[in-house]
């Protein structure tokens, strides 16, 4: 252990991670489990075949309260917040004035509030940003007292059928307050693995009891951050800090699906958000784009990692890898990266330069592994 690790924050499940033999690493200012003794590969496969329990308590949870909260949040995101139905969840993007992505987040319309889940490394900056821009229009209430667990995998629903049958009413991207063994939880049917699954917000003091109850179910194994990364990449999901950042717009990041029509040019509530000029300009004039995020897959079994350079068949640099690894499910290299728009079409052949050697890759549709969300 280095001296720096003593400054790290811990989640309410820290003692449980150590008890389960986790290898702990610094992540977003926290000491977090990167893997348990079973190892990344076994944990990845377990999540795809059964159910994995992830501690994501380092992520930020907050509430926006007040009658103007939804309209106010629309000033910070190119997303339809006001039109989101009760107990429905949506993916959103906080933007800066240049249209760069400050963070990506999930939010739920709970009626009495908007419940936001943001990235751990960004949460302090997010809260300050939201407070600064819309703090006079609604209450911004951080929830550091809450822990967050994710139960992910094809057998996650079978587990909840046993311990929280009321949660089975949920479909993908909806939420509900549910008690589990007397513990008050707020459950959404969502996650970041591409599998059916649930994210469970729970009071920190009761998080360990809940985690022990879930881990006692035969389908459930603890899963670390290592497998969380390989699972999300197979699902084609962006990692903030790798695949998007403040210098990337949602259009460049191929996240235009998250920008509903109502906020686009010609929509009923078009624009009016930070970065609107830049983002709507790119949406209205796609020819101005200089790069675009794509998925890539290689046929040779050589892992291609960030920041490998992508070259065209003439040896000119046309892009860069932002996330890459050997897919445990496909046993092939998969990656996300940015390329010049001329090279963004599916099946375009490129070379990733790995230790000076070209590895042939093809632009590919994502997700790399089919998602299994429960849409009811």
């Amino acid at each position, binding site marked *: 252990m280095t001296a720096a690790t003593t400054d790290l924050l811990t989640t309410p499940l820290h003692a449980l991670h150590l008890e389960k033999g986790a290898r702990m690493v610094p992540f977003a200012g926290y000491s977090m489990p*990167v*893997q348990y003794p079973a*190892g*990344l*590969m076994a944990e*990845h496969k377990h999540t795809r075949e059964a159910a994995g329990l992830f501690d994501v308590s380092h992520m930020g949870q907050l509430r926006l309260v007040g009658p103007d909260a939804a309209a106010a949040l629309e000033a910070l995101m190119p997303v339809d917040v006001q039109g989101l139905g009760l107990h429905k969840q949506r993916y959103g993007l906080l933007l800066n004035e240049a249209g760069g992505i400050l963070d990506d987040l999930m939010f739920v319309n709970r009626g009495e509030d908007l419940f936001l889940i943001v990235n751990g490394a960004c949460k302090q900056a997010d809260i300050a940003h939201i407070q600064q821009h819309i703090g006079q229009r609604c209450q911004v209430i951080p929830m550091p007292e809450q822990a967050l667990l994710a139960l992910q995998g094809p057998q996650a629903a079978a587990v909840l059928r046993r311990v929280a049958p009321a949660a089975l009413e949920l479909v993908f991207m909806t939420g509900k307050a549910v008690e589990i063994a007397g513990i008050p939880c707020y459950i959404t049917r969502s996650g970041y693995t591409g599998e059916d699954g649930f994210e469970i917000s729970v009071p920190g003091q009761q998080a360990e009891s809940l985690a022990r109850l879930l881990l006692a179910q035969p389908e459930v194994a603890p899963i670390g951050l*290592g497998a969380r*990364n*390989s699972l999300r990449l197979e699902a084609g999901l962006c990692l903030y800090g790798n695949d998007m950042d403040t210098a990337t717009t949602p259009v460049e990041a191929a996240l235009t699906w998250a920008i509903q029509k109502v906020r686009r040019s010609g929509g009923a509530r078009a624009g009016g958000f930070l970065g609107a000029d830049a983002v709507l300009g790119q949406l209205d004039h796609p020819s101005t784009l200089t790069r675009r995020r794509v998925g890539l897959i290689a046929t040779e*079994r*050589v*892992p291609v*990692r960030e920041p490998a350079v992508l070259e065209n068949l003439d040896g000119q640099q046309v892009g860069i890898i932002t996330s890459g*690894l*050997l897919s*445990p499910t496909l046993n092939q290299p998969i990656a996300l990266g940015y390329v010049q728009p001329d090279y963004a079409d599916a099946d375009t052949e490129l070379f990733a330069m790995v*230790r000076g050697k070209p590895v042939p890759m093809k632009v590919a549709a994502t997700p790399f592994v089919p998602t299994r969300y429960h849409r009811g």
Partner: protein
Amino acid sequence: MSIKFSKEHEWINTADTNAAVIGITVHAQDALGDVVFVDLPEVGASFNAGDVAGVVESVKAAADVYMPVTGEIVEVNEVLRADPSLANTDPLGAGWFFKVKLADVSQLDGLMEETAYNAFAQNN
């Protein structure tokens, strides 16, 4: 004892005086996690001690394999290339990386014995 260890977490077995066998240590493979790929040098290539002669990758990370001694590669482990998980399951045996003809046997004196290496690895 004919096995010595480097600070870069390689082992070298000089029981066969014609061709020393080099691999990564139990500690190294444990730190890397599930090994999924190895990049091995060309037979006939020569390296100085400290040069990068290969790469070992897990899903989560890539690590260089350094030459603990100066020498020429005389054989690489094609079985390991086909099944990189041998670096995890049998790092000191079937998971060896390559064999080297030593240029200067005295370089072995700069490497660690097992007890000293284990103490070193505990703290690194």
